[in-house]
């Protein structure tokens, strides 16, 4: 390396090198910063998809091939719809950002195993075409497409969407009587009938956390969903504020209104735990309420959002005519996100001492 001689440049040396280099060298100009962190939108989507894999795998374990079929149909029609609409309206193709895959997958995990395949297609097409692309695509939709798809199907095909069969693999913990109804409708019925049996509930809790209970294919295994949640928190993709405040609110409200007559015995914790593990709460709180596009942008707003979802879920489950409630709670809260963002504007640096 002859670096030193060049250092003490003589005039001709410099002149001979300069133009030659300048000729072929076109320098790229752009404003600062000149470096970027590597994680981009497709990676985020891929990580969320990966985090859903434990739930998907457990759904295959408990519900068998129908679960695979429904997922493939749902993802396929979601991606296909996005591709077709972009093509038809001559817009840039956006399927490579993986958001349609994620929507299809999330929607599939919200199906009961018995759902006919064509209903899954209708749900996916609705989610992508009307809930997402009609508002301008990724980033411009104000409600979560997968949830909108599910809500649409529940309203249009209530029977098909609530035909919950008990898992085909039978029971590990010995409660078999859940076929046809989810644990949530069981507990609701028990409440209405006034017979509260802690014994039955605590054994139901065990099967809920493992996942061999009736329900939508992806929402039954609490452990699989929590594992996914841990991945997302670890990769800093979701803000733990939302699931924590959501689940916490549901837990506290059910604890305060538990039917055991006390707040400090173990029985008082059964109902709230049950409500956390049962139904779509974990799936909704970890994967749907945290959807970035449709949740608040400010840290404080996210807590408010989570609490709001929790209160609504509690209200619907406790007083509504419908045992679920996660879908509608999140959808309703999605609608007021702009409001939350506006009123939770952070105090900027230096504002405290503003002199006017």
């Amino acid at each position, binding site marked *: *390396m002859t*670096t*030193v001689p*060049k*250092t*003490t*440049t*003589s*005039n001709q040396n*410099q002149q001979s*090198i*300069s133009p030659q*280099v*300048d000729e*072929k*060298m076109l*320098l*790229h*100009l*752009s*404003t*600062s*910063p*000149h*470096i*970027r*962190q590597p*994680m*981009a*939108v497709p*990676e*985020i989507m891929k990580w969320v998809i990966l985090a859903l894999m434990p739930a998907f795998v457990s759904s295959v374990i408990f519900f068998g091939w129908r679960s695979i079929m429904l997922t493939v149909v749902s993802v396929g029609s979601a991606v296909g719809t996005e591709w077709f609409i972009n093509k038809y309206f001559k817009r840039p193709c956006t399927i490579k*950002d993986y958001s349609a895959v994620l929507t299809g997958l999330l929607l599939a995990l919200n199906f009961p195993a018995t759902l006919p395949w064509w209903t899954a297609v209708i749900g996916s097409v609705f989610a992508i075409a009307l809930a997402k692309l009609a508002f301008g*695509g*990724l*980033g*411009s939709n104000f409600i979560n497409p997968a949830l909108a798809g599910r809500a649409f199907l529940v309203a249009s095909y209530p029977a098909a969407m609530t035909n919950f069969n008990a898992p085909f693999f039978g029971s590990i913990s010995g409660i078999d009587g859940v076929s046809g109804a989810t644990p949530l409708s069981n507990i609701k019925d028990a409440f209405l009938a006034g017979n509260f049996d802690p014994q039955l509930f605590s054994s139901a809790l065990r099967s809920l956390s493992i996942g061999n209970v009736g329900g939508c294919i992806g929402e039954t295994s609490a452990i699989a969903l929590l594992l996914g949640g841990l991945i997302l928190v670890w990769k800093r993709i979701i*803000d733990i504020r939302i699931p924590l405040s959501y689940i916490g609110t549901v837990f506290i409200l059910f604890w305060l209104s538990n039917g055991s007559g006390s707040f400090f015995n173990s029985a008082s914790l059964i109902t709230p735990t049950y409500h956390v593990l049962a139904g779509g709460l974990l799936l909704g709180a970890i994967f749907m309420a945290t959807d*970035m*596009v*449709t*949740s*608040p*942008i*400010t*840290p404080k707003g*996210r807590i408010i959002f989570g609490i709001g979802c929790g209160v609504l879920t509690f209200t619907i489950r406790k007083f509504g005519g419908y045992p679920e409630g996660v879908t509608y709670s999140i959808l309703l809260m999605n609608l007021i996100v702009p409001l939350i963002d506006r009123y939770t*504007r*952070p*105090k*900027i*640096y*230096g*504002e*405290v*001492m*503003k*002199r006017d």
Partner: protein
Amino acid sequence: MFKKYSFKGGIHPPHNKKQTESLTIEEFAAPDKVIIPLSQHIGAPAKAVVKRGDRVCIGQTIGDAGGFVSAPVHSSVSGTVKSVGMFPHPTGKQTMAVEIENDGTDEFAPLESFEKPWKEAAPGELIQKINNCGIVGMGGATFPTHVKLSPPSNKPIDTLIINGAECEPYLTADHRLMLERTEGLLTGALITRKILGAKRCTIAIEDNKADAIAAISQKLSDPKFKDLSVGVLKSKYPQGGEKQLINAVTSREVPSGGLPMDIGCVVENVSTALAIYDAIIDGKPLYQRVVTITGPLTRTPKNLLVRIGTPVMNILQACDVDFSMLKKVVTGGPMMGIALSTLDVPVIKSTSGLLTLDEKTPGIREYPCINCGKCVKICPMKLIPSRICKYAEKGKLDDAAEWNLMDCMECGSCTYTCPSKINLVHYIRLGKYQIQAKRAAQNTEQKK
């Protein structure tokens, strides 16, 4: 051992300092020709006092300050003035500059060191000397130092922070100075402290420079430095931002639209403190500085002591840059530095580094904003960059201003972190210019 200071928000880009942090500063030979811009600071450009054919010596004034907020400019070589005219400037503009041909004799103009020990001098005399030596903030802002050191009497200063954070990735010039010229910069800090009458003087260093912290702590055991202290900062960007540094060290916040002196603080870069030492003790004007030359395409990265006015091309050649792959050269750090349009531009008083990059950084958005909130979480000014950017992009300047567009410090953290690769700060800057232009237009309107 120490309590670590920090601020809320910020990012953790890869440091990339290993390449140069252990390389001793080398002196770079004076080039055959220097181009010394008359505008190397914020404020009015200096006025040339030499003309074509004049002979000048090292340290001779070639441009007089063009006003109070301005600074004189000195020659960095001895030789003949070839021309005074428009030359490309690192900021991308064409500005007035003095082109001097080096005669190689390295003859110095008579250096007037301070006539009495600095401890006996009045602040005003010291400030005058600093002013004459053309010292400006060398961390990048280039605010004339004598102005910073003359706060109005109703704004007493109680805290002086010497900024050794060097939070920009890649750069190690300040780090090396803290190791190699420890005594000088600490004395410079003492001189500044005396000028300001500040009670507290903290030298703030990021914890990724353990050797610098150790070297300075060791020197501080000497009783003559008993008034100084070390503050260890968490390594994160933009820890060295003036407002973030003040907040980390004192828990105070500079009011929106205000200056550090409003809350009794002054922040000075370590290179500036050293320049003050050189000026007061040796009478040396600011005609050279340390530059880190690094980046993926620099085969022999270096920390070089360079004469102001040395063309960037000469330096890159000396560091064996792979020109065939070169896509971009940045002066300063990768977060706030400026991409050069030509390599004929000179090193100026604020050139802390030269970075060679092999890839283009995306200038356009790749995905729509997905509202992920990462930019909100890391913005050190606690703004909502995504929203401001949207307003600025759509030309809704009033809305943007209402959401504190003008408080953005342009640190670039939001752009760095955005998963949609939106160049938020670019649009924010654009909005700022438009608002400034609008305000200027309104002012002239009113005057009519």
